[in-house]
């Protein structure tokens, strides 16, 4: 049976070739590439600044984090240190975007389990608040293109700090609502507990990252383990799962929303004054025989491997997309389960075709 590329729960244009025995999945082969835009080839023909809008289109629900990963990789090539204020701003917007992205993950997961649209609408309602904030900060609602090499595009506008603080206050009870509506719901538990159990060793071997890895019980978060920006100045916990089942993966996202709210709250209180941007030349010509930089994206570790030959264009730019590795493990997990479980496992991994196909 062909599941996708046009199917309600393949999160984009993934095609799964299934061999079924009644309802039982015997074999699952993903076919990807329907959204392939050869962004890596395009990168070789764009200047370093021109490529920033393209990173928006990788993981289109967490554009800020993609922007951040890319500009930080270029800054690493240039050995550029950005100002404190820019670093704080980056942390705030990245964490807000993480919340927005996890909200979509939670909503679509509930949708996949058949909770008809209601949790999804609640999540979108809350996400709208984040988007409104971003709209004020950077002028766009989905493809932000906010980060710049050497800082951020605009400084925070007037009154945005209060708005973010209001959002944090607004968001906390909503997360509790999700707990009531979904997390401890008996049907939800029955559907997702012990489904698609991903053992620790398998997760590491498949290079699964992000919340999916932490759900398997590995305490590994780049924000704590290889702190970039000013993440080491904040107090936050890393939620770790126990079984590595679908419910744990979902739970990680709910908990990370809570932790991100904590980070945002601390960062907005400690936001220092200063210039948000370091002046860099209009045309950058960094050179490197290979620079790799990875950041913690909502979906896992996003890495940029950039080779520069001293010209205005990158010689080679490789995007290590977290969903790409996360997808690889799914066929192994769904063998022998039912179609309904396949949808559940797939939803819990929260893969996004935009960055898999690039």
């Amino acid at each position, binding site marked *: 049976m062909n599941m996708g590329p046009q199917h309600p729960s393949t999160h984009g244009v993934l095609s799964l070739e299934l061999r079924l025995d009644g309802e039982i999945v015997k074999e699952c082969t993903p076919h990807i590439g329907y959204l392939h835009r050869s962004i890596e080839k395009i990168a070789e023909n*764009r200047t370093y*600044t*021109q*490529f*920033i*809008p*393209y990173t*928006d289109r990788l993981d289109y629900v967490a554009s800020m984090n993609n922007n951040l990963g890319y500009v930080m990789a270029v800054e690493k090539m240039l050995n550029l240190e950005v100002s404190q204020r820019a670093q704080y701003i980056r942390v705030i917007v990245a964490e807000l975007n993480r919340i927005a992205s996890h909200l979509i993950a939670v909503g679509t997961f509930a949708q996949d389990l058949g909770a008809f649209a*209601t949790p999804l609408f*609640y999540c979108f*309602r809350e996400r*709208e608040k984040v988007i409104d904030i971003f*709209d*004020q900060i*950077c*002028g*766009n609602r989905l*493809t932000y*293109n906010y980060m710049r090499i050497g800082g951020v*595009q*605009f400084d925070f*506008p007037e009154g945005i700090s209060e708005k973010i603080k209001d959002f944090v206050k607004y968001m906390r009870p909503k997360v509790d*609502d999700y707990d*009531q*509506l*979904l997390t*401890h*719901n*008996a*049907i939800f*538990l029955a559907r997702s507990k012990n489904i698609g159990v991903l053992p620790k060793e398998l997760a590491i071997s498949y290079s699964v990252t992000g919340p999916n890895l932490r759900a398997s019980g590995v305490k590994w978060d780049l924000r704590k383990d290889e702190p970039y920006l000013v993440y080491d100045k904040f107090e936050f916990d890393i939620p770790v799962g126990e079984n590595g089942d679908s419910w744990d993966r979902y739970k990680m996202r709910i908990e990370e929303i809570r932790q991100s709210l904590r980070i945002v709250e601390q960062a907005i209180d400690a936001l220092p004054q200063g210039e948000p941007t370091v002046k860099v030349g*209009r045309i950058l010509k960094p050179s490197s025989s290979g620079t790799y930089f990875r950041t913690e994206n909502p979906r896992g570790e996003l890495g940029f491997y950039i080779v520069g030959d001293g010209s205005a264009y990158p010689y080679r730019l490789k995007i290590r997309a977290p969903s790409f590795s996360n997808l690889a493990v799914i066929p192994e997990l769904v063998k022998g389960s039912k179609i309904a479980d396949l949808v559940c496992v797939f939803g819990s991994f929260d893969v996004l075709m935009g960055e898999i196909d690039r």
Partner: protein
Amino acid sequence: MINYPKNFIIGAWSLIKGLAVTLKYFFKPVVTLQYPDEKLSMNDSYRGLVGLNPEKCIVCNQCVKICPTACLAIASRQEDKKKTLETFKYNMELCCFCGLCQQVCPTGAIIMTNIYEISVYDRKKFDIDLLNVKKYDEWTDTTVK
């Protein structure tokens, strides 16, 4: 054996709590807007369609150079040391609304308007001549009259 009814009751209670959440929102006011009747007003920093202030433009070609998708095209003529604009073509189909042109413009001639209703019936309309388009309000077909 004792666990079986206990789990059953806990499960039922969790379902009732879920119902309580949805009932709570049933009586809360709605958050959506009735789109064509009520519209979201974009703030000034919103990056909508590209607009041009022809008096300010000094034909430096910076915007054309920075554009990642090559959607801008300028033609100019030399008139006693001063360049004047002849055409300023803007291909909306290619535009990715990144705002780099606005950022790079030294005189603030190129701006991003806050118009977000950008669907038209004729594809040719996307090839916009920025010098001739006076008001975008008349350009767009989306607005329900």
